[in-house]
């Protein structure tokens, strides 16, 4: 495949933005149908890039600033790009058929996709920053215009946190260039090769932790999340939770672990502690919530804590688990919010005390609740669903490095079952309120996005390689610690990936094939 194919990955959402402008706003379903073409084509192109490895693209942009249009795909970015395209398409489909101001709404969703996809494709620090910042604008507008009753305060809080995140990332990226040994070169290859002094590494890592910790988010930088998740339109929350938050995780992995390994090693106990605290804090807060959206927000925070734990340990297995957790969490949180969106659309509320009996087979929302139950089970790490292999790898990979934090996170993960059961007991079972239960049932077109995610969550659970296979090589290369009890027993990842007898080789190409930068 020619290198320009990578550029084509960014063109469909751009074209989508233009395309939807050609349709009358009076026809929101047509606008939606056209909008979904962009991410769908992007998904197909990304799959093509997976099957037919594409060389990196180098285009000069503003060389004096160190900004070049360097794009590439590897085992870290390809799965996240696929996830981005998929979640964007499903988020668009999950929007209501009578979406108000549909052209602007879908254009902003596509712009968000463009920013996130660009960040995952970027091989230049400044380009990553540019795309990272680009995401903030459409998402803020989406919250501010289409959000709930408290959308103004949610949007203000979201942009304030986002602005701090962007500014600190700017400072971090510039610092990486200034302190770099190879001159002011912000290409990833140069950043990875430069040996920064330990003091500079520490300061830059602190900036990166702040920037990406805000984006993830992780305790105590999560102040924007519950309010934004509670107020934003459901497709936007699907994007925020499923895709945008992964920018933070990806940034930590790429910049923190990849470019500042010494500082990462030194700071990792604190990072692990933050992850474990996030896991516990998120889970306990989720138990205490009386609104499903806020419950999901805290649940997401808790699961981001597990991801951070995996990153902090930085063993090959834990990093592989962290990438798998990004993918699994992306799908699960999108599924959770797709189901919550259906509940909200039908019942008009997400307040737990106002809902009950939704499992009623005749007048409730049994299909939606069934999918929600499955999503909660996946989040809780029930075997056979996507959450299980990801969390297992994180825990297994982190145990040797941070046993206490891992144990705490493991217990916190168990709390998922507590709030899931509590939610179901109150919302799913009990008496269906006669005065309220006159909503229509969900139709297949409304269910379709959630159903697609459900199938993926089940599929990834039954075939975990779909989550873990992408990043084996990258995880090994990036790891700052070894995996003592696995290194002698199991062949190296390259060998595993190259083996014709494994699922990895049979289905996913060896990630080295994808490494083009």
């Amino acid at each position, binding site marked *: 495949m020619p290198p320009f194919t990578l550029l084509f990955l960014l063109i469909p959402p751009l074209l989508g933005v233009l395309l939807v402008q050609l349709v009358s706003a009076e026809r929101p379903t047509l606008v939606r149908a056209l909008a979904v073409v962009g991410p769908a084509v992007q998904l197909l192109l990304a799959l093509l890039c997976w099957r037919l490895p594409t060389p990196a693209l180098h285009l000069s942009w503003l060389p004096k600033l160190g900004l070049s249009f360097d794009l590439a795909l590897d085992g870290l970015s390809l799965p996240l790009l696929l996830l981005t395209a998929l979640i964007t398409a499903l988020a668009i489909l999950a929007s209501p058929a009578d979406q108000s101001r549909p052209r602007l709404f879908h254009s902003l969703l596509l712009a968000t996709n463009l920013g996130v996809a660009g960040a995952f494709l970027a091989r230049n620090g400044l380009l990553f920053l540019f795309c990272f910042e680009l995401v903030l604008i459409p998402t803020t507008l989406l919250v501010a215009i289409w959000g709930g009753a408290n959308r103004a305060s949610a949007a203000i809080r979201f942009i304030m946190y986002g602005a701090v995140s962007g500014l600190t990332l700017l400072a971090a990226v510039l610092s990486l260039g200034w302190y770099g040994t190879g001159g002011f070169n912000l290409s990833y290859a140069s950043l990875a090769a430069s040996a920064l002094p330990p003091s500079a590494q520490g300061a830059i890592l602190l900036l990166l932790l702040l920037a990406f910790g805000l984006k993830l988010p992780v305790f105590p930088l999560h102040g924007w999340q519950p309010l934004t998740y509670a107020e934003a339109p459901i497709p936007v929350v699907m994007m925020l939770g499923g895709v945008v938050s992964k920018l933070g995780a990806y940034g930590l992995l790429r910049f923190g672990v990849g470019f500042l390994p010494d500082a990462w090693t030194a700071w990792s106990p604190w990072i692990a502690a933050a992850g474990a605290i996030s896991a516990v804090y998120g889970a306990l807060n989720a138990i205490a919530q009386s609104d499903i959206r806020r419950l999901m927000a805290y649940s997401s925070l808790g699961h981001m804590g597990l991801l951070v734990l995996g990153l902090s340990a930085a063993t090959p297995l834990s990093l592989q688990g962290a990438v798998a957790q990004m993918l699994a969490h992306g799908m699960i949180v999108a599924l959770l919010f797709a189901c919550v969106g259906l509940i909200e659309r039908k019942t008009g509320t997400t307040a737990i005390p106002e809902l009950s*009996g939704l499992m*009623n*087979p*005749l*007048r409730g929302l049994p299909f939606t609740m069934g999918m929600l139950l499955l999503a909660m089970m996946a989040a809780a790490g029930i075997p056979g669903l996507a959450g299980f292999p990801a969390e297992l790898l994180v825990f297994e990979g982190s145990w040797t490095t941070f046993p206490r934090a891992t144990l705490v996170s493991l217990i916190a993960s168990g709390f998922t079952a507590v709030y899931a059961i509590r939610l179901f007991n109150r919302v799913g079972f009990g008496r*269906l309120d*006669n005065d309220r239960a006159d909503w229509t*049932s969900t139709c297949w077109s409304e269910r379709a996005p959630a159903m697609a995610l459900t199938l993926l969550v089940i599929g990834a659970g039954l075939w975990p390689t779909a989550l873990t296979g992408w990043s084996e090589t990258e995880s090994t290369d990036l790891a700052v610690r070894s995996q003592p009890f696995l290194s002698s027993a199991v062949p190296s990842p390259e060998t595993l990936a190259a083996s014709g007898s494994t699922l990895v080789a049979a289905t996913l190409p060896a990630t080295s094939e994808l490494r083009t930068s």
Partner: protein
Amino acid sequence: MTPPTATAPEPVAAPLIPPSSHRYADVIHRLEAGGSMLPDTPENLMQIIGIYKAYAVPMDFYWRDLLYIAEQVFLDPLPAFKYFPSQEYLDLPNSYAGDQSKLRIWRGGEKAHPELLEFMEKGETGKMSKLLHHLWHDRINMEFAEACMEAMLWHQGMGGRFYDYLDSDAYRANADRAIKAYFRGNPLMLGLYALFPEMFMEQVKKMSYYANLGLFWEVMAPVFFEMSDIYDEGGFKGVPDAMNFLVNGIFAVAGRPIYHHVFIRGECFEVIPKSEGFTWLYEAALPYVEAVFYRTAPFRGTKSYNAQAYQVPADQADFHYGILYADVFPVGSAGIPPTLLMQDMLHFLPPYLEDLYKQHKRGEEDKLIQLGITFQRSMYNVTSAVIQALRCALLYPLDDTDPEHLMANRRFFEAQMDRFLRPEARLPQIQTQDYR
């Protein structure tokens, strides 16, 4: 200015008693005017008559099988085939309908209803053996009928002499003879009977209630069929007409004997002989309405109750889980008796009810709940008929001119309405058509 052609308004007679101040004063005034608790609207009439018809078909099976179990299956320790009534019972002539009836009051045929026979043969799935229909649960659900029977057995002190009679020496002697005859040549069961006589006696009592309910429904099935026919002919003008038909029906058969005969090897054992003088109105109809419409028991699968937190009344008379109080919305869980009844009625809905349900709520999807609420409306009408019948039997005519008599009627109606003051009662909901 009054036009010269205008006639002077007719003087309206001042009411003999002041209006009721009861919370359900409107309903009470309607009852005093000869109406029903259910408002008189064309749609209500259509709903209740339609559901009576849908109820009558499975009821035609219920009463035949109940009598089959009481009279033929009796104490079979493994009654695996009790829901397979013999052809003799399917052909059993109704006592009050058909050419072979002992006292023909209602139209109808003497054998099982053709729609019932057709359903028994084909079910929802298609033509196959009875056993496969049974195992696939594609059948008439006798579990609902048994739940009603158990409610009548369990709730006591509902008037009448029937339950007390089950403890009498005469009954025990009759039951003893029947038990010994049934297990003749079976030393194991006779040995067990010698060891645990009360256990066997309790089973016979249960069988007597099977007979009681079977004899009750034998009357009601043709009543409902005929109401449906009259409606189809354009005979009923409103809900009060339908209620009055029921009142008249109640009085027409009020004196039918309630008995329990058991047939063992061709010999009839009169466990409760007709000569005891138990009658349909007092020993079957009134206890049935009380036990099933008002009281019953919390059905598992509908709602959880915490008895330790006093969510279940200590006094059985305060139970309020019958159809008049039922929250039909949560019903729909598989296998519980109310759902099974709705499932039974679903197969025999008249086309006009099918069309009505398609127009409201979720249409085809939640027909089971819509017909459940229709059933609730119809049972408020049946209860109204029972209340009017009781008033007729115990108190004064509605057009009585003595204020004291009218006040006695008023107190009676108010006392009846007091039972619907509790929040679970659905009387307020059925006053509007929005409740579906």
